[in-house]
């Protein structure tokens, strides 16, 4: 992210206009290329030396803030490591023991330069590497170990995305309108929402059907937002933005509290922001991986896929995102797994399942949830579909149980 002093934007009547850059700008491409090349050429060099080399180039740029921003962006992606060629801490121990011993006998006539000479002489040859700088292993002197695989053009493109993310750090919530016909992208969008522990209040949607909604309006913020506002979830909102930028049609608006001012920021897909700087992969929990492996071995007649459509389950916050789809010929069965951290949705889902018994949806519920909530436990165990469509699991879903449930569908 860019720090506050590196943010570039104009304000017009309280509206923030980010100063995007043209990724095809030849001057900027040349500067970005110089940054990338310097880092690539200076692998194994201390950070301070790289900066020293780049400093004149950075300072010669007309827009110093932009130059520093691009440099920071690239530097943040690099990996640095300390100098391990010698044991700096051990050498310092020897040196300080000596200085502490000698300081007891300093005299009025002695200068501190004399004292330093005496300390190094007393500590012996082993501490010689410290003579120029006792703290030469500080982060400033760490050496470049790895550079990112990024072209100058991509660095400029990424700058625009990061500029928006860095502004959204100061937002309380996001008002979104999205339109997407690709179910996989939409699913990824909602899964990201869940991953960043954000909540969505869907105010309107159209053309919903099993599969893909075409347009959705929603407000996104965190659980405590309605209580005390503030930009508490700014980092989560900013981190979530790439999931928005990969949709076909989107627009968002948010209020920012920046430098003591109340500002507004709104953007849409015409801004050209996209996210293609790494995988926006979906996290697959270990228990699901393990289950998939065992299931494939033991129940070969059904195929398993994590590429599931999502289902609308109610008027608000009510999307069913099955974790797994089982396919047997034309038949599809969806499995949604519940863990303690999102157990709050279980009562709603139980009601949904009761109301839509025709839907091929199965619920797996982590057993741990029941022990801490007896009321919910009773509700689950007394549900008419408990056993046939709802089951409990400890670490990962039991394969045999799932086979039996699927057989009933077949």
């Amino acid at each position: 992210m860019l720090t506050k002093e590196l943010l570039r934007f104009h304000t017009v009547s309280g509206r923030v206009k980010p100063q995007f850059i043209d990724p095809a700008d030849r001057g900027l491409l040349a500067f970005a290329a110089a940054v990338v090349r310097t880092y690539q050429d200076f692998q194994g060099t201390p950070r301070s030396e790289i900066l020293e080399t780049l400093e004149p180039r950075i300072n010669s740029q007309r827009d110093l803030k932009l130059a520093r921003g691009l440099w920071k962006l690239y530097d943040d992606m690099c990996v640095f490591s300390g100098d391990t060629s010698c044991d700096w801490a051990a050498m310092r121990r020897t040196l300080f023991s000596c200085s502490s011993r000698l300081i007891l006998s300093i005299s009025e006539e002695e200068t501190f330069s004399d004292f330093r000479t005496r300390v190094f002489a007393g500590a012996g040859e082993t501490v010689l590497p410290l003579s120029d700088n006792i703290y030469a292993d500080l982060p400033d002197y760490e050496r470049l170990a790895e550079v990112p695989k990024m072209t100058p053009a991509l660095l400029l493109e990424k700058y625009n995305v990061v500029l928006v993310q860095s502004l959204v750090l100061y937002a309380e919530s996001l008002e979104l309108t999205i339109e997407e016909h690709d179910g996989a992208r939409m699913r990824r969008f909602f899964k990201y929402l869940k991953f960043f522990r954000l909540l969505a209040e869907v105010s309107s949607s159209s053309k919903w059907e099993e599969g893909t909604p075409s347009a959705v309006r929603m407000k996104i913020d965190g659980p405590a937002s309605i209580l005390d506002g503030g930009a508490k979830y700014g980092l989560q909102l900013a981190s979530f933005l790439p999931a928005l930028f990969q949709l076909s049609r989107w627009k968002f608006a948010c209020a920012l509290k920046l430098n003591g001012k109340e500002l507004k920021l709104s953007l849409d897909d015409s801004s050209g922001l996209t996210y293609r700087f790494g995988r926006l992969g979906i996290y697959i929990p270990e228990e699901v991986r393990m289950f998939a492996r065992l299931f494939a071995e033991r129940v070969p007649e059904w195929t398993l896929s994590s590429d599931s459509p999502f289902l609308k389950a109610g008027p608000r916050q009510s999307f069913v995102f099955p974790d797994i789809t089982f396919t047997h010929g034309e038949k599809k069965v969806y499995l949604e797994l519940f863990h303690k951290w999102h157990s709050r949705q279980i009562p709603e889902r139980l009601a949904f399942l009761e109301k839509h018994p025709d839907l091929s949806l199965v619920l797996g519920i982590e057993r741990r949830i029941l022990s801490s909530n007896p009321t919910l436990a009773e509700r689950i165990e007394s549900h008419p579909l408990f056993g046939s469509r709802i089951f409990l699991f400890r670490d990962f879903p039991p394969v045999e149980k799932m086979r039996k449930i699927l057989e009933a569908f077949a």
Partner: protein
Amino acid sequence: MSSVTIEFDAGTLLLDFSGVPPPAEALAFLRFDDRVSLWRARACDYAPLRRVLHAAGWEVQDHARAYSELNLTLRNGFRPMAHQSRALAAWKKAHGRGMVVMPTGSGKSYLAVLAILSAGRSALVIAPTIDLVQQWASSLRKFLGIEIGMLGGGAREIRDVTVSTYDSAVIFMEFIGAKFGMVVFDECHHLPGPVNRLAASMAIAPYRLGLTATPEREDGGEAVLNDLIGPKVCEIFIDELEGRVLAPYETRRVAVELSAEELEEYTASRRIYTDFIRAHGINFKERDAWSQFIMLAARRPGGRAAMNAYLKQRAIARCGRGKLEMIWRILIRHRGERTILFTADNDAAYAIGNHFCFPVITHKTKVGERREFLDRFRSGEYRVLVTSKVLNEGVDVPEASVGIVVSGSGSSREHVQRLGRILRASEGKQAVLYELVSEGTSEIGVSERRRKHRAYAGRHSEEGLSC
């Protein structure tokens, strides 16, 4: 009887009244959350909410509370000193919610141990730095005789009694905010910041104790402390404890002359900088003046030169040759005494460390080496320690008797904290805090500002040590 279910949800409380309107008395704490169709409340309002619901005759199914009752006994304890008993009684009288103001070295940690024992609930102690967290862990282990959990500096272990940095507490509170019935906020003047306050608002703990030596804030943060911890229940001043609990002390301001060359360079740089701020109408009495300067320095002609000039004159005033000479004179005068040197910035700390071959602790120091430096300083193996700001607060170095403020801010809180580092009493100890001020520079005004505190009244002397 009507029934309500309370659940802890990501640092907040969710209340399910099963479609029935909540009692009117509870509405002050509640907001209806359309996103989940339930009522929501701040986690820190757990105790008053429970009381209100109980008084209104509602049956509460409490799925929020995840903290346990503890039956701890005091190990290696001693009879509390009179001021500690007074503070504990005041906190108990306030139903275990409130802030105690006590000077550094007067036994705040032991007071916290007594309060934890009195509350008898699983407890979280939150402190600003990893050094303090380690110090708390060691102290709690000694007095409670149990293993202590730790969050921060790479550790992520939760136990009945756990210590955490503010940073880690903020990150983890949405997951652990229901696990502790008591929270101790060490150096609680850090709490009112917009981020740190989450460590208090996202926890359900009914028992709360705030500890600080310097509660003064200039931003109205007292109201936040009152809301999230409770009112100030007891205040004890340095001069009340001097000579008994704290070492007798004196403070000396030493004027340091810049060399002719330094003075010339300082004056020239200062002029470039002040000309720039005057030309652009920057008024440092205004709140965002510094941001304005940074912004203009990046954009306007002459801005870069003004910024370089600002940094140059500041470096000369903060750690010029004259100050290095003066440090040396003071070290000769106090040969053998444990001495801490404080600077305003890391560059100055490392410059001094390199000039004199002394250990330096800043936030850049690795945890292991930081611990080693402190241990060796406490044991007497190291006699001098240099630090920027990380040792301003709390870290226990009782053996230090001489402090040298080489440079610092105008904050009286910072200055009192630095004084506190050398005040812990021991047999025959006389503490001295030196303040080095470069003559003819802006440091004179900064020094005047930071000395405006009761701790300095009537014990100030000016000194002109010759180099």
